[in-house]
C-alpha cells in the first residue's frame, strides 16, 4: 500500500523564514533545509534549463511502454508507480536539453527495444509496418484484376452474342441438339 505523497511545505517554509525575527532565522534555515531535503524525493531532480511542456512529455511517454508488467500499456496511460517515475525522468531529461531521440536511445540502452511502444521503422522491424498495407494493396490489386477479367469476359461474350444475332444462322452454327432433333423428326416424316 504505497500511496504517492507530494510535499507542499516548501512555499510555506519560505514565508515563515522571511517573517520570523532575527534570532530564529537559524531555526528557520534548518526548517527550510529539512523541507528541501524532503522535497527532493518527490520533485523531479531540479535542473535549471529549458521549460518543459506537457505536450513534449506526452509525445515521448506515449511512445514508451511501461515495464511494470501490466502488458503493453504506454507510460502515458499506465498510471502505476513505474510509469510516474518514468514520466518524471523524461521531464528531467527534457529540461536538461536532451532531444527526443536521445531520450528514446536512453531507454533502449537500458531495457532494449522492448521499451519502445512500436518497433522502429528500420531493418527487420520494417516488416511490422509494411506487411499490413502491402497485404491490403496486394489484395486490392488482385481484386481489381479479377473484376477487370470478368468484365472483359462479359464484354467478349456480349460481342459474340451481338455478332450471332446479326448474322444469318448457318447450319454449322446451329445448336447440335437442334440438328439432331431435326434429323430424328425427318426420319419420322
Amino acid at each position: 500500500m504505497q500511496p504517492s505523497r507530494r510535499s507542499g511545505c516548501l512555499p510555506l517554509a519560505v514565508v515563515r523564514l522571511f517573517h520570523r525575527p532575527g534570532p530564529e532565522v537559524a531555526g528557520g534555515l534548518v526548517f527550510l533545509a529539512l523541507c528541501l531535503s524532503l522535497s527532493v524525493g518527490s520533485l523531479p531532480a531540479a535542473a535549471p534549463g529549458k521549460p518543459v511542456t506537457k505536450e513534449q512529455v506526452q509525445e515521448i511517454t506515449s511512445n514508451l511502454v511501461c515495464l511494470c508488467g501490466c502488458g503493453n500499456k504506454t507510460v502515458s496511460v499506465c498510471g502505476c508507480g513505474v510509469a510516474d517515475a518514468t514520466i518524471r525522468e523524461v521531464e528531467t531529461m527534457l529540461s536538461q536539453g536532451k532531444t527526443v531521440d536521445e531520450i528514446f536511445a536512453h531507454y533502449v540502452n537500458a531495457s532494449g527495444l522492448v521499451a519502445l511502444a512500436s518497433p522502429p521503422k528500420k531493418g527487420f522491424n520494417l516488416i511490422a509496418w509494411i506487411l499490413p498495407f502491402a497485404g491490403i494493396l496486394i489484395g486490392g490489386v488482385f481484386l481489381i484484376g479479377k473484376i477487370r477479367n470478368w468484365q472483359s469476359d462479359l464484354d467478349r461474350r456480349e460481342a459474340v452474342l451481338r455478332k450471332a444475332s446479326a448474322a444469318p444462322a448457318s447450319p454449322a452454327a446451329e445448336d447440335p441438339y437442334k440438328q439432331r432433333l431435326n434429323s430424328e423428326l425427318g426420319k419420322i416424316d
Partner: protein
Amino acid sequence: MNEFGFYCVTAALVVAAYAFLVSALAGKRADPVLAQSGENALIGSFVLIALASASLISLLIHSDFNNEYVASYTSLDLPLHYKVTAFWGGQTGSLLFWTLLLSVFTVVVVFQNQAKNRELMPYVCAALAVVQSFFLAVLTFVAPPFATLGAARPADGTGLNPLLQNYWMVVHPPHLYLGFVGFTVPFAFGVAALVSNNLNPVWIKTTRRWTLVAWLFLTMGIFMGAHWAYLELGWGGYWAWDPVENASFMPWLLGTAFLHSVMVQEKKGMLKVWNLVLIILTFEMCLFGTFLTRSGVVSSVHSFAQSNIGSFFVAFIGGSLGISFYFLFRRLQNRQLEPEQRLTAFFSRESSFLFNNLLFLGIAFAVFWGTVFPIVSEAVRGVKVSVSIPFFNNVTLPVAFALLALTGVCPLIAWRKASVKNFNRNFLYPLIAGIATIPAAMVFGVMQPMPLLFFAASVFVLATVVWEFWKGTRARQAARAESEQGESWLRALYLLVATNKRRYGGFIIHAGVVLVFVGIIGSSFFRMEQDFVMRQGETARFKNYSFTFQSFGQRREVNKEVSLARVDLFRNGKKLATMRPEKHFHFKGEQPQTEVDILSQFDEDFYIVLVGWDDKGAATFKIYINPLVSWIWFGGFVMALGTLFVMMPNRQRRALARTMRQEVRHAA
C-alpha cells in the same frame, strides 16, 4: 464432488468421441440410424458436461479448497455471486464453460434440424463433436478443473483477482464466449457442406441466425470489456490494443466481413468460396483468441499466467485449418464452387461488398500481425520488441476511415452496375452534408485532419441512412396515395421498416457504428487531462468545471479496506454531482485497486481518479475530460438493438410463405 466432476468430464470425452465416429460413419453411409445415435450421443455429452459444470459450481459455492481451482480463484470472504462467476474467472473453469456452451448449442442445433438438413446433419454433428472432444481432452489430460490438492489443501483460498470483482467482468466473459462458441455452428455447417459435397447455399440460410446471434454476443462482449476497462483500469481510456482485447476484435472483424458477404451469395450466387474461407477463418480466429487468452503466450493484463495448453491449441487450430482447406481445395479442383453469376462492374454493390471485405480483412490482419509480431521477432532474431497503442492506431486508423466511408456507399449502390442517376439519387445530398461538415467542424475548433475526415465521413454515412429512410417512406406514401389508400408518414415508416427488417435493421446497425466512430474520435483526439494536488476544502478549476475537495475517509469492508474522497463538482457554476473516487486495498490483493468516479454527460465525461494522499490532508487527483465517450456506449447499444431487429421474424413474409405452402398442398 471432485471425483464426480472428473468422471463426468472423462465420460463426456468418451461420448463425444463416440458421437464423432458414429456421425462421420453415418454421413459416409447415409445411415439414419447411425446419425440418430450420433445425435443422441451429443445430447448425452451435454448432460455429462452440465453435471461436471454443476459440480464445479457447487465446489466453488461451498469453498472446497481441496479443489485446486477453487483454492486458486476464491476465498472464504469472497461474496457468493463472485464465487459463482469464478467459474469462468480462471483458465480451466473458463475452458469448461466454453465446452458447456458448445454442448448447449450442439443440442439446440440437433433439435432445430430434426426434420431438415438430414443429409448435412451427420457431418455437422461430427464437426461439433470434434471440437467438443478437443476441449474435453484438454480438460481431462492437460488442464483438469477437478485437480485436488490433498494434503496441501489450504485453510483459505487465494481469492479472485480484485479487477474481476466487478459487474462488467461478470457479464463480459460469458458474452464473449457466447460469441466465440456461436461461430462454431456456421463453421460446422460450412465444413459439413464441403465434406458432404452438398454445396448449395442451404447451409448459409440455416446458419444465418446463428451467425447473427454469435456476432451480437461478440459485439456486446467487446463493448462490455471496453466499458469495464474504462471504469476499472483508471487511465481514462477504454481500449489499449492489449493482446487479449485484440483476440476478441479479430474474430469480430472476420465475422462482420462474413455477415456482409453472405448477402452477395444469397442474392447473386457469388462468393461461395470466399464465404467458406471467411467462416473457417472466423472460427479459427475464435480458437486463436481463446489460445491467446489462456496460454499467456503474449503477455497481457488479462492473461492468467503462462500455461501448457498452448501447444494443444496450436495443433488443433493447425489440424482443423488443414482439413477444412483440404476439402475446400478438392471442391475447387472439381469446379463444384462455381459462382452462378460473375461480378462485372467496379461500381456495383457486389464490388463494394468485396472491397468492404478487403478492408475488414486488412484491419484483422494488421491487428493479428501487430499482436504476434513480438513473438515473431523473438523467434526469428531473439530480440524482444513491443507493439502497443501507437502502432495499432497508426496502422488501423487510415483503413478504418476507408471502411467508414464504404459503410455509407455499400448499401445504396445498385446491384450489378451503378449509374450516374443512381449516384445522384442516393449519394448527392449525403455527400454534400459530409463535405459541409468540414468547415462546420473547423468553426467549432476542430483543426486536425484526421478528426475532420472522420467527422465528415460519419455525417456522410448518417446522412445516407436518414436519406434512405426518408426516400423509402416517401415512396411508400406515394404508392399508397396512387391506390387511394393513403398512409400517414409515421405509419408508412413503420410498415416500411417492419416489412424489410433485414435492410433497415442493417441501417440501424450502421448508424450505431457511426456513433461509435464519433465517440472514439472525440475521446481520442480531444481528451484533456491534468493532475491536481488539493487540500480539503480547496477548489480547483479545469476547463469550465470547478471542483471542491470536501473530505477524505476510510472504511473497512468484508474483504477490503476502502479509502475514498468526496469532491463536489460544478460546471459553469452549477453543481452537477458529488464525485467519490476510491482506492481499494484487498486483503488478498497485492496491488491497490483504483475505483474511479465518472460523470457521464451527452457531450463529455468528467473522470476523476484518486491517485494518492498524504497524512497532512492533501490528496492528488487526476482529472480527465473525455469528449463524446458516452456516444461509444450508446452506439454499441444501437448496434445491439439493430441486430435484434434484424433477427425478428418477418410476420408478413411468414404469413405469405404459409399461404403458398397451403396452396401447393391443395394443388397436390
